[in-house]
């Protein structure tokens, strides 16, 4: 098609602003009709991303890629001319042109201003200093990420939503953070003073200092920030300052276009400005006296504007019930509607439990919910939102207002919701829309649901609702598991791995103090111990107090508090001499039971802790790691050596595999097998890693199980030589170490990722990737050692010793 011909036929729509409001509006316009030739200018250099999630990027919960909403391909598919990194500096409403800071002049038929807002900088002296930042866009976030490091003194000016999220993000990066807030309590626009008090306590608990009622008068330091000064004289040292004191609509272009501008660009219920060819949407507009800074209203405005601009005028924008949710993991804060309870005729219902940190306050007016504040328990927020939006008469359910009837599914009564009820308030997606999409498009994952309906792509607070809908409606629902480790360290493991790597953290206690509740528990401590050992290839700071007793004394605790001892017998191949020593030890230490295990090894059960070092010394054999999440054994058959059916030397291969991997730790135990023919006598097909010999080749299989679950292993690769088979096993082994969640067996891991992905990222990965995996394995192996050598060099003088009282006690 001739582009000139094209433009002459189509009306030209120029959009200034490539942010969430502008693009959501364009998406709506495209739904109406593709009659426009669209050009979009963005002064940032990124495609449209989810600005709300910047705090999640700062906190390491999401990567930059995770928050992209419209990739370049979306712009291409919709024939949109995208101009990034261009700031529009002028509008000539009469000539219908706009001018960019690159000198370009662009003609428009219709102009859409979606210029958003900018950080409000309070009048502070000497604010332009190195180390002073705002927190508004991706570049700001990147700068903060570059600066933030453990121990850095950071001051956040502003205790609103954004300021608190920035504070948590910096604190998660290890900074010592103080929030300085002008008002008497935090988030005063969303919370009352009691709610603000609860929130301040929560922030303190996380290790963030909160200073209230303080006005910052100056930034101190010579060129580089050294502190902040308050009105009245006090100062606070600071190496980094973030100003998050609110936003100001970008109305400059509105003025230049001669539009009616107050605080924002004034629009009517149809989202029209005072010029019939110029429209505005988002944070830069003022509707009915209100400028909105939250996502839901901007999207509602976009829908109305799209109808108006495409000639389908009729839909009206009538304001939005403001709702806000603080996005700090582990701190649940929700506020919606009118929170001022001093208005005539309003009643208040409150509930608080200071120990649990739960505070709920509902404001009622004329038998309807007018506002809600929820702290510490926000499970019912969607219900209150619905009552607010639909102005439901709640007089009949007054008794249950604070604790609405939980549905059968435990709180989120997705079944009880009407089809028209909103699930995603940000994107304005109803239950009916989601159900239709699931049926029509055959959706079965959250990712597909997000892509298709846009639900849950805003603030993310409706994720669990969406998930329940999927679960209930989609026949082939697939859960995406991204669980946090535990309450002490509320991070998903893959996020935490990235954070610990980038922050160079090497001890469990350090991690708990910066990212957790500084106490830890029996769930997270061993998990973190493993993670640090793996990340630093054994070069971490080992902390035995964070290890389970088995890993403190390298033996398996039994029900009576004694221990079991399993020496390493590689491939199950032993010798008369070894067997004699084992027998001698069993007699000498009066071992109550000697047992052949299912793993072709010998277990000495009932050994006292204090005897362990002597038992190991007398055995003269290395630890079999039978007590830990680590390399257990390789079970073998006699292969070609004696068996008349054997076609591969499985015994030697198994012994060599065990030698290469022994003494290493893994997310869960790793049991292996090597068989010399497909008869599979050593059961390699139900092992975590199996080598199956066949005529002229080896099959390497992974993810098998014969425990609580029985699963046939998946084929990783078929190779010719034994060395190739061993390398493939090592690649998978290290990949599992690096990517599985703690306590995730290979069979769950392989099933979760899919064998195709595993193959692609191990045996079929590029040379560099494979070599890097093997190199990290070599490094870990080089630092690993037989744990039983601690018999001569204990980690602690009383590691195995029974302490005797310093004075005699006479009974």
């Amino acid at each position, binding site marked *: 098609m001739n582009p000139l011909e094209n433009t002459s036929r189509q009306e030209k729509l120029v959009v200034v602003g490539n942010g969430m409001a502008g693009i959501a509006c364009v998406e709506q316009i495209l739904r109406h009709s593709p009659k426009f030739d669209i050009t979009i200018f963005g002064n940032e250099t990124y495609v449209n991303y989810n600005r709300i999630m910047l705090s999640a990027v700062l906190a390491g919960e999401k990567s930059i890629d995770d928050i992209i909403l419209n990739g370049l391909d979306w712009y291409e598919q919709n024939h949109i001319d995208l101009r990034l990194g261009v700031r529009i500096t002028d509008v000539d409403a009469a000539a219908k042109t706009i001018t960019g800071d690159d000198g370009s002049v662009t003609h428009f038929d219709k102009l859409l201003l979606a210029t958003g807002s900018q950080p409000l900088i309070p009048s502070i002296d000497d604010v332009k200093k190195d180390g002073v930042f705002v927190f508004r866009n991706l570049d700001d976030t990147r700068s903060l990420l570059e600066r933030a490091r453990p121990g850095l003194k950071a001051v956040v000016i502003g205790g609103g939503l954004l300021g608190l999220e920035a504070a948590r993000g910096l604190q998660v990066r290890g900074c010592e953070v103080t929030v300085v807030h002008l008002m008497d309590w935090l988030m005063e626009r969303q919370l009352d003073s009691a709610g603000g008090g609860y929130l301040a306590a929560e922030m303190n608990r996380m290790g963030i200092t909160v200073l209230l009622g303080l006005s910052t008068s100056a930034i101190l330091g010579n060129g580089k920030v050294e502190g902040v000064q308050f009105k009245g004289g006090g100062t606070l040292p600071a190496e980094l300052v973030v100003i998050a004191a609110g936003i100001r609509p970008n109305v400059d272009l509105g003025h230049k276009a001669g539009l009616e501008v107050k605080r924002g660009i004034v629009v009517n219920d149809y989202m029209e400005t005072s010029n019939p060819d110029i429209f505005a949407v988002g944070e830069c507009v003022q509707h009915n006296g209100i400028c909105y800074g939250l996502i839901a209203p901007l999207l509602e405005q976009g829908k109305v504007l799209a109808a108006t601009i495409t000639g389908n005028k009729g839909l009206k924008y009538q304001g939005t019930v403001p709702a806000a949710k603080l996005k700090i993991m582990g701190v649940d804060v929700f506020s919606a509607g009118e929170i001022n309870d001093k208005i005539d005729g309003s009643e208040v219902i409150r509930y608080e439990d200071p120990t649990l940190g739960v505070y709920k306050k509902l404001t009622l007016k004329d038998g309807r919910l007018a506002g809600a504040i929820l702290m510490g328990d926000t499970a019912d927020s969607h219900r209150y939102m619905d009552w607010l939006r639909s102005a439901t008469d709640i007089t009949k359910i007054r008794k249950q207002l604070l604790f609405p009837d939980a549905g059968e599914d435990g709180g989120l009564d997705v079944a009880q919701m009407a089809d028209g009820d909103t699930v995603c308030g940000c994107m304005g997606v109803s239950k009916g829309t989601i159900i239709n999409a699931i049926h029509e498009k055959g959706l079965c994952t959250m990712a597909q649901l997000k892509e298709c309906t846009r639900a849950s792509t805003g603030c993310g607070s409706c994720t669990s609702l969406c998930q329940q809908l999927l679960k209930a409606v989609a026949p082939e629902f697939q859960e995406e598991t991204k669980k946090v480790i535990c309450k*002490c360290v509320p991070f998903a493991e893959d996020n935490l791995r990235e954070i610990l790597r980038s922050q160079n953290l090497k001890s469990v206690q350090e991690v708990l103090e910066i990212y957790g*509740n500084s*106490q*830890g*528990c*029996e769930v997270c*401590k*061993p998990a973190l111990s493993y993670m640090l050992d793996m990340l630093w290839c054994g070069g971490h700071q080992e902390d*035995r*107090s*964070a*290890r*389970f*007793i*088995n890993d*403190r004394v390298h033996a*398996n*605790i039994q*029900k009576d*508090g004694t221990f*079991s001892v*399993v020496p390493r017998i590689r491939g199950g191949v032993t010798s008369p001499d070894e067997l004699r020593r084992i027998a001698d030890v069993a007699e000498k230490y009066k071992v109550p039971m000697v047992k052949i*295990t*299912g*793993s072709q*090894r010998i*277990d000495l059960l009932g050994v006292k802790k204090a005897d362990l070092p002597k038992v190991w010394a007398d055995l003269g054999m290395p630890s079999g790691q*039978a*007590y830990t999440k680590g390399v*257990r054994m390789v079970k073998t058959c006699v292969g070609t050596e004696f068996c008349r059916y054997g076609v591969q030397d499985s015994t030697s291969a198994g012994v060599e595999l065990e030698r290469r991997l022994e003494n290493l730790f893994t997310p869960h135990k790793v*049991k292996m097998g090597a068989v010399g023919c497909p008869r599979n006598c050593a059961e390699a097909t139900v092992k975590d890693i199996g080598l199956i010999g066949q005529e002229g080749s080896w099959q390497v299989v992974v993810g098998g199980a014969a425990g*609580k679950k029985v699963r046939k292993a998946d084929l990783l690769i078929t190779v010719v030589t034994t060395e190739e088979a061993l390398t493939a096993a090592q690649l998978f082994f290290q990949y599992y170490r690096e990517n599985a969640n703690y306590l995730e067996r290979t069979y769950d891991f392989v099933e979760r990722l899919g064998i195709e992905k595993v193959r692609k990222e191990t045996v079929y990965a590029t040379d560099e990737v494979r070599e890097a995996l093997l190199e990290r394995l070599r490094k870990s192996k080089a630092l690993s050692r037989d744990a039983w050598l601690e018999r001569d060099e204990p980690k*602690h*003088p*009383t590691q195995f010793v*029974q*302490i*005797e*009282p*310093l*004075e005699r*006690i*006479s*009974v």
Partner: protein
Amino acid sequence: MSTRKWIRAARCEDIPLREGRAVHLGSRVIAIFNLGDRFLAVANQCPHRSGPLGDGIVSGGMVVCPLHAWKVDLESGQVARPADVASCVETFRARVEDGDVLVETPLGPEQECGVSAPPSLDEREAICAG
């Protein structure tokens, strides 16, 4: 009524930070824990199946029994998990003197404490050797 006596039970450095160690004091086995800012002592016997609490992982002011992950408050001796169990372990006062941990030990028979554990319990997956 039994008499109690402060017994010099261990040297402070015998008990590593955030770990416990068992000491035989008369007829009792007492687990002493080093919480960094203080030492706490309880009977070295989980009310569930007598697991050695001194071998547990310390979580704040609690210890988690290594056998079936019962959680015991080291200050009060109360079982904190499972939540519906109202049993507890005997606690002993402990203090530091000249670098030693002293534990106030009763010289009479062991004290009964609280209600004993119910029989059916949700046990964690045992750690199997093999």
